[in-house]
Every structure is written in structure tokens, then in C-alpha cells.
């Protein structure tokens, strides 16, 4: 009897339930938690790569800055709506040609839209914006300027929060982000006085919130080396334009830019070793998306 017991004790304990292993129910084997794994999918970040990739955020902030700059310039009478319209349309045409070139060169045509389709869409948008601009200019006229500014600030923040920076998070919603931007432009349009003002503001907002991020994404995907120069260029233009009417805004913008580009990545890299993600047999299995069809 005793020898038998000793035999059983010596037999290695196995992680099974279908055999009585003559150990108490609360027995803890030395193999306990052997299958525990830590930080399986943790990525190692390189500081300078993260710095460069933070450009995705700062580019969007710069774009918002340019939009605000255009409004302030028109409000002060330094910029006529016609000039704004001409500049933005020209830039959009250049951007469009660039897109066609990229699509052609890298054979990346996800949709089968033709040039005609795009022109049609552009004309429809322009036509509607022009037709509706008398309405837009007076739509929020009765609302006080403070409220308008507060709403615009909220909407621009919303645009930043929901913008698609390339990560698939639950928060990301391109439609919401674009709509917030357009709403901001409609709010601001009523503070300017002619229908041309409101027309050029709205078209500018469509271009800068709708088309510009798409072009940037294309560039990032196919010609990534453009990114750091684009970020830098946008930063220079925006800060100089801001400087012309508000030193505080320009300094604030530059500080924010430096914070996001250099300090946040350092922060991320330094916090990475603290990551403590536990994996084990209790994790829910993930189905690889292969074929269900």
C-alpha cells in the first residue's frame, strides 16, 4: 500500500481531470502557470520612426490651422473669396493629377471610376454649394458670434478626434470627422458677409477635410519619403501665416507641434517596457480570416 502511494507520488502530475492523481483538490504543481506568456504581440518602437509617423497627426492639425487662417484672413479683408477659391481649386487640380499619376504608376486602382465620373461629382458638389450658399450665409446669422466660435472649436476638435489616422480603433469614423469639419465651415460661413465668401469657405472645407486626407494617405502608402517634408512644409506655412495675425496662436501651435512630434514618441517608447500583457490557454482563440465563402 505504502509503496503504491510512493509510486503514485513519484509519477509526474499531469494537467488532466480524467484521472484521480491522488493529490488534494487544491494541489499546486510546480508546472502551475507554465503556459503563461507575457507580451507576445508587443512591438518594439524606434524613436525616430515614431517621430516621423506622428506626422499623421500634426498634418491634420496643420490643415485645421490653415482652414482657420483662411477664415481670419477673409474676416479681416486681407483675402478675397475669389482668390481663395482660385488658389484652392488650382491646388486641388494639381492634387488630382498627382493622384492619377500615383494610381497609374503604382497600379493601385481600387475603384473603376473614370475621369468623367470625378468631374461630374466635382461639378455636382460645386453646383450645390454655390446654389445653397445664399442659404448658408444666413443660416446661423441670428446666433451670437461667441456661440458660433465655441461650436466651431468643438467641431474642429471632433474632426481631430474622429479622424482616420491609420489605426483601426473603435473611435475612428471618417464620416463623422468629415461632417464635423463641414459643420464648422457652415458655422463660420455665416460670419462672412457675401454668398461668395460662404461658397469659397464651404468648397475649401470639402477640399481640406475630404480630399486632402485622401491624397495624403495615397502619398504615405506609395511614396513614404515625402511624409517628413510634407509635415515640415505644412508646419512652416501654418506657423508663418498664424504669426501674421496672432503671435500667441503661432507659439501655441509650434509648441503643440514639437510636443506631438518629439515628446510624445519619447513618452511612448519609454512606457513600452512597462507593458504587461498576459496570454495563456484561457485566451479566446482568434479565427484567421481565410475563407468562409
Amino acid at each position, binding site marked *: 500500500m505504502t509503496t503504491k502511494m510512493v509510486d503514485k507520488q513519484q509519477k509526474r502530475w499531469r*494537467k488532466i481531470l480524467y484521472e484521480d492523481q491522488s493529490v488534494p483538490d*487544491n494541489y499546486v504543481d510546480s508546472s*502551475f502557470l507554465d503556459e503563461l506568456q507575457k507580451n507576445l504581440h508587443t512591438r518594439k518602437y524606434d524613436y525616430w520612426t515614431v517621430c516621423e509617423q506622428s506626422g499623421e497627426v500634426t498634418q491634420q492639425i496643420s490643415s485645421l490651422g490653415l482652414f482657420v487662417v483662411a477664415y481670419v484672413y477673409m474676416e479681416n479683408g486681407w483675402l478675397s473669396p475669389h482668390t481663395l477659391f482660385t488658389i484652392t481649386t488650382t491646388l486641388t487640380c494639381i492634387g488630382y493629377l498627382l493622384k492619377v499619376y500615383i494610381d497609374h504608376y503604382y497600379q493601385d486602382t481600387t475603384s473603376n471610376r473614370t475621369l468623367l465620373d470625378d468631374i461630374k461629382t466635382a461639378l455636382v458638389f460645386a453646383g450645390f454649394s454655390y446654389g445653397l450658399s445664399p442659404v448658408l450665409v444666413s443660416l446661423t446669422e441670428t446666433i451670437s458670434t461667441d456661440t458660433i466660435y465655441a461650436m466651431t472649436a468643438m467641431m474642429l476638435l471632433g474632426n481631430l478626434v474622429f479622424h482616420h489616422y491609420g489605426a483601426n480603433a473603435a473611435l475612428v469614423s471618417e464620416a463623422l470627422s468629415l461632417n464635423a469639419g463641414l459643420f464648422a465651415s457652415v458655422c463660420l460661413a455665416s460670419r462672412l458677409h457675401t454668398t461668395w465668401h460662404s461658397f469659397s469657405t464651404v468648397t475649401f472645407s470639402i477640399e481640406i477635410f475630404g480630399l486632402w486626407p485622401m491624397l495624403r494617405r495615397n502619398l504615405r502608402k506609395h511614396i513614404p519619403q515625402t511624409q517628413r517634408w510634407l509635415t515640415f512644409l505644412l508646419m512652416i506655412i501654418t506657423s508663418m501665416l498664424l504669426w501674421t495675425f496672432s503671435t500667441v496662436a503661432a507659439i501655441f501651435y509650434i509648441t503643440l507641434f514639437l510636443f506631438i512630434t518629439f515628446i510624445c514618441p519619447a513618452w511612448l517608447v519609454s512606457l513600452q517596457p512597462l507593458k504587461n500583457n498576459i496570454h495563456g490557454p*484561457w485566451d479566446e*482563440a482568434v*479565427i484567421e480570416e*481565410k*475563407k*468562409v465563402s
Partner: protein
Amino acid sequence: MNNCLSLRRHNVCMVSDFFYPNMGGVESHIYQLSQCLLEKGHKVIIMTHFYGDRKGVRYLTNGLKVYYLPFPAFYNQCILPTIYITFPLVRNILIKEQITIVHGHSAFSTLAHETMFHARTMGLKTVFTDHSLFGFADASSILTNKILQFSLADCNHVICVSHTSKENTVLRAGLDPKEVSVIPNAVDATMFVPDPSKRHPGKITVVVVSRLVYRKGMDLLAGIIPDVCQTHPDVQFIIGGDGPKRILLEEVRERHELHDRVKMLGLLEHRKVRDVLVQGDILINTSLTEAFCIAIVEAACCGLQVVSTKVGGVPEVLPPDLIYLAEPNDQSLREELERAIADKRAGRNVPPFMAHNRIKLLYTWRDVAHRTERVYKRVADLVERETKERLSRYYSCGPLSGKLFVIAAVLNIWFMCFLQIFQPRQKIEISPELQRSHILKSNANQKNSKEEQRSQKRTLLECEDSLTNGTSSKILRRSNRKRTKSKEEL
């Protein structure tokens, strides 16, 4: 009989949000365990929240008393977490029934956590059984794990259904692994007897009995059905169960024109499960996560070969000759299923009644009750912790949460002092017990055939006698009135 009574008797209160008329793993676990403990001579009552018209006190088979408490279900059959609101009524019942051990079930159940918390405040011993696995990756699991840590910080003993589940719970709640026992689930073998005559001769039938939801891996199943049907013309599938993924399986059946090969039965009653299982040669389980998986044990008990994904506690459950383990992906699952089909054709599988006889001895409710009883004994022998030690256990839960937990625990102690003033313990009427001798006598008559008696017990549950004891429901009502009165005084 003498032998039974000479053992130390515990007054146990099982508590969970999940109980009959709800049907599922936790529900039947509580019921079966309670029945076996009653049989061993312990006093067992069950506490749950009300279900529809089922309110107040009910008696189930063998005088198993169930309190359906007046707290409405809030989310997923659980009551609204309020911590304190449940205390007066719970305290009343625990005193009235002279409970010594509170046994909570399921990590999802709010009522179980709250009752255990109150029981600890009152100085009663608590045991908790965890039936599920949790991840650590997302925000919701971080929150639920923190709540579990709070609930188990002062719990006397924890029971898990598999070794994997134990590892998981120890990590989630930061427990000492010695305070956690592994007691597997069980099956009622009398309900799952093989019947090879019901099989489809000349065909190989693959059975699926499961809720048709994502976590049960229905996407994997939908991926392998067409391929297997194509390569093996004699294979047919029978799918029992319902859920959001049913439409996916129906789509696959439609697209590949497999109506004569894939039979879908829809929602199955628990007692019909056996009738479906015995028609099959192979059961396939595609779960993505599983603490124990009773379905594969039931199938093996019915003499089926089991093919299953190798997740959670599944590899621990069945001996290797009864189960084919696959990685949770299309290819591996298909390979293992084809291996099982080939073995079946060649007659290499374990004969149904041999498998049945093995499972019958492996996982029995009596064994579960016996092992749970050992846990109760261990817990009852523990020296009661001092308040200081209890609070320091809460305090060590975390830098911020620890302080919050201490505040919650101290508030509960104060609340108990108030309750003691407004509804003194001495004034709470002790509930009269159902004459145990009657039950034991009627049991003794049937003792010659235990199997028969146990299966009868089960059928009795289903036609559940609404033998609502007039006096005790009156007591409950009175205590409710008292409770509202004491609240007004407060």
C-alpha cells in the same frame, strides 16, 4: 443513514443570479450539487432573483428550498449592482435559515458577489465557484477582473472547474493558488445512455449541439462543412441549437446545396439533447474558449467520438482515446474530423458502451458533492479573520482600488450595525425545517435502485412542484414588510 448524520452538518446557501427556470451549465450545476449535498444530510437553500411570476419561496424536489428574491434582472439576467440594497433581505434570510456557509456561483452573477460580501461582513464563511474564463487584453475584462478581485479578496475558498480555469482565476483575482480547488463538472450518466440502434446505418453522422454564437466557433464550423461534405459523400451533419450565427450556417447550406446533408434542428430542450446525440457517430465542438465543456463529456457518455478545438480546459477533460484535439483553425479541424471519420470507417474507435462506462465513473455529481464537502469542512475549520485582517486584504488589492474597497467594506460594517439596531438578530424568527426524516424515509424505500431514484429526481424538477410552503412565504412577506419599515425608520 447513521453514517450520514454522524458527519458534520453544514447549512449551505447556494447563491447565483442563474437558476431554474433559466437553463444552462451553471443552473444545472447548482441544482445537482444541492441535491447531492441534501442527500449527504446537509441543509441547502438556494438564493436567486425572481423570474417572471416565480417570486417568493418555492420548494423543489427533496425539499430543496429556493428563495426568488424581489430584485429585478437588469442586464444578462443579473441584478443591478448596488452593493448595499440587497443587505437587509439577504441578512434576514441568512439568519433565519441559520446559514454557516455561503456558496456563490458564476463570476457574472452580481447577486452572488453581493451576498458573499454581506456574508463575510456577518462573519459567515464563503466559497465561490468560477465557471468561466476571461481574457486580460481589453478594457471590459480589466474592469470585471477588478470586481472579481474585490469579491474574492476576502473569500475563504474558490473552486474552479478545470486547471486552466484555476490558473485564470488565480491571475485575475490575485489569489493564493492554495486557496483554489479544482473540482470538475459532472454529467448525469443515467441521462446519457448510448443507443446505437438510433444511428443512421451506412452513414457517418456528425452532431453539433451548441448555442450558435461566435464564441462557440460557428465561423469555423461554417468553413469546414462544405469541404467535408464534398470529400465524404456518406457524411451528414445534424446541428442542434439556435443563435445569431444560425443564419451563417443556413447561408452555407444554401450556397452549397447541402439541404439533405445538413439538418438544422433549432433550439433544443435539455432533455432532448440525448435523443439527438445518440443519432451521431462523431460530435464536433468548435468553441473558441471553454472552461470545462460539458457538451463533449455528454457526447462521450453517449458513446460518440469527440472532435474538439484545443482551447481552455478542453484538453484536460477527456482521455486521449476518446477525443481528437485540433487547433482552432479550419485546416486542423478538418484534418482531425477526417481522421475521426477514417477511424470510424475502420472501426478503430472505442465502442459506445465502453466509453459510457468509463465516463460514468469519471464525472459523477456524487464525487463533486464529496469533494465540495471537503472544501466546506476546510472552510468551516478556518479561524474567523479579524476585521483588521479583512480590511488589509481589501487594501492590498491596488493603490486606488484598495482604498475604495476598504471604504465599501467599512460602510457595510456600519450598515450591519444599523440593521442590528433596527432589526435585531434575536427578533428574526428561525425558519422551521421541512421534516428531514420524511424525505430520508421516502428515499430509503427507493434506495435499492439509486439510478432510478436519481433519474426520478430529475424528471421531478422538470414538472417542478409548486409546493409553495404557505407559512414560509408568509414569513418572507412579513420580513419584507419589516424591512421596508426599518428603511422608513432609517
